[in-house]
């Protein structure tokens, strides 16, 4: 074996190791965080009123929060539009990517194929808008920190490298699929020798690593927000706080 091949093999091994590490951290971190939320009591029933009076109502409220961001709509119409398109694109891109990890590819994913590609093209627009408003509005600038910018840049970089390998510097899809399926079946094979694809892949792994420790946890936490996921019935029946008895008042 010549030197170049050896280096490549080493890089490939590192890449595969990094992929498994980030997947592990992502899944483990996410589950841990959610377990922590579930374990932590909700001492007082503090619901956003007027709220749902029944369990199905709560499901509808959360579904609404996840799908259409109603509170944001009331707060800021333009931000709502930007945020919604941003997330719709993310979602479509995510759906499209299941094709690389599932075999056979589900019908739905094939049906959504085209519109998902548009989502990839569209994505940088809302992302840029979100980035721009962080700088343009003095209030948002004030609250923005480095991680807020990095997250947006990271997502845009992922989407751009993705579009590059899809359109302009095409990567051979059969190789990609062999590689990704290899990863999910724990029989890893060599990644395609394509620098932009490797960059795309590395960026995604970084996103996974970052996810559980950052504000991106809103994607999981939105389901556990006590003001949104409880029935609005604080008066009846009696709501019990597990640690109430520990607080002595006599």
């Amino acid at each position, binding site marked *: 074996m010549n030197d170049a091949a050896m280096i490549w093999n080493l890089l490939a091994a590192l890449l595969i190791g990094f992929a498994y590490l980030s997947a592990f951290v992502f899944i483990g971190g996410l589950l841990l*965080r959610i377990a*922590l*939320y579930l374990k*932590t*009591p*909700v*001492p*007082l*029933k*503090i619901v*956003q*009123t*007027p709220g749902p009076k029944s369990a199905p109502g709560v499901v509808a409220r959360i579904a609404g*929060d996840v799908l259409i*961001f109603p*509170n*944001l709509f*009331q*707060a*800021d119409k333009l*931000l709502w539009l930007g*945020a919604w398109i941003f997330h719709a694109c993310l979602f479509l891109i995510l759906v499209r990517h299941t094709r690389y990890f599932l075999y056979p590819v589900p019908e739905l994913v094939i049906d959504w194929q085209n519109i998902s590609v548009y989502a990839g093209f569209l994505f940088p627009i809302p992302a840029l808008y979100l980035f721009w408003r962080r700088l343009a*509005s*003095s*209030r*948002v600038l*004030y*609250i*923005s*920190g*480095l*991680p*807020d910018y*990095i997250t947006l840049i990271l997502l845009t970089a992922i989407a751009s490298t993705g579009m590059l390998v899809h359109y302009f510097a095409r990567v051979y899809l059969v190789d990609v699929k062999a590689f990704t399926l290899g990863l999910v079946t724990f029989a890893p094979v060599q990644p395609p020798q394509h620098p932009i694809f490797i960059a795309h892949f590395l960026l995604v792994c970084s996103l996974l690593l*970052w996810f559980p*420790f*950052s*504000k991106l*946890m*809103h994607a999981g*936490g*939105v389901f*556990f*927000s*006590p*003001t*949104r996921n409880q029935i*609005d019935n*604080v*008066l*009846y029946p*009696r*709501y*019990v*706080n597990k*640690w*109430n008895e520990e*607080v*002595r*008042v006599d």
Partner: protein
Amino acid sequence: MPEKFADFPATTLTWRKTNGGLAIPVPEMDEGIAAAMVCHPSKAKDMKPIALPTERVPHWQARAVEKLRELLEKYRGLSVYLDICAQCGACADKCQFYLGTGDPNNMPVARANLLRKVYRYYFKRAEKFLGGDAEPFNERVLKEWYTYFYQCSECRRCSVFCPYGIDTAEITMAAREIMACIGVATKYVTEVVAKVYERGNNLGIPAPAWIDNCQFLEEELKTETGKDIRMPVDEVGADVLLVMPSADNFANTDTMMAYGKLFYALGISWTTSTYANEGGNFGLFLNYQNMKKVNKRILDAARQLKVKRVIWGECGHAWRAAIYTNTLNGPMDFLDPPHPVHICQFTADMIARGAFKIDKSANDDLLITYHDPCNVARAGSLLEEPRAMIRATCNKFVEMPRNTIREKTFCCGAGGGLLTDEIMPIRMAGGKPRAEACRSTGANYLAVPCAICKAQLPEVMKHWKVDARVGGVHDLLSRAMVL
């Protein structure tokens, strides 16, 4: 008015009515403009009876971090809210204290970030590593906390506009609880809680004076109506224990007399208690323990007096705590269901059953508008009952712009323990949105079922030159009731 006040950028903004709403002008940001407006610190004599350290505890930094850890383990809300805020800024211009002052730390998200940066420093190192704002709990941070967590009225308006319902009020409560446990609290709040333990009420009215006042009101009612309407105190075996804000006995006497007439007309026996002649719960602004202890007095009094029901009077913070009573001090099953009950629920129900003879024209001299106290409405779910009462007792009722009422109501500017004179500029600034909303209706009577609002809003109206009298909702019933 302290000099600084005139400097708030909001003072010069113009407010405009749009179709049904109010165009809310957002001031330019002015960093630190409200930083000098801090509440007086607590005194040792008040800290002692409320089980808080009388001076800054040794190793206070470590103690505070330990307390934060404890609260994170006890409150899912805190844990989730600190984690998931997207820093989107949707809430930034929704707080009356930002709208009034333009101080960026009064943007709900920035206020929460004061705690979040400490959380990051000790508990979320990844974000700190990537350059997120993180700071150890030190003297500087403590000063920021003390300033800005006492410029938040815990009104929860911000949560209505947050895509995840992040409740900055809960973050404020956590920060205050942490400060309290190291011996840092405000004079006003601690003094009030200490008074409750000593005298039974927030104003420190001693029992003999309470009884005197009640007798005086009975005489007033006799002169006004010619009837023997009673203001009973400590009567064992009455049907109803009424816990009102003690200010009703002292300042808002029209409201208190209205309660008397109400029960007289219904023929229901009732009483007040000199052990618990206060509903307003300032423990809520301090920590869980004091909130529970203040509330406990009410149920103890109910047991002593052997009443069948407890009804909470026209008070916002009383009701916010009352809705937790069953959790904190319950089960309340020694009382007749439903419980707890707010007087507006009770009265609206009685009106609906046709229990009173009402002459609406008695209120024709008034154009009435209604302020939803945030604790009655947003926290306490009573949106319809007070309105039903007003409609049933008045001919002329006008709503304020829709983005300033119901669950989107603006706080009066003095809730959450801010009703203290040393921060008058903050109070007036925070009250500005309410004043402008009221002005836009042209009403001359602002009905409010909350004692803190009743103390704050007259000053707000005077300051912003809005010509409306502030009074209770029951006052209107009292005027219209034909006995």
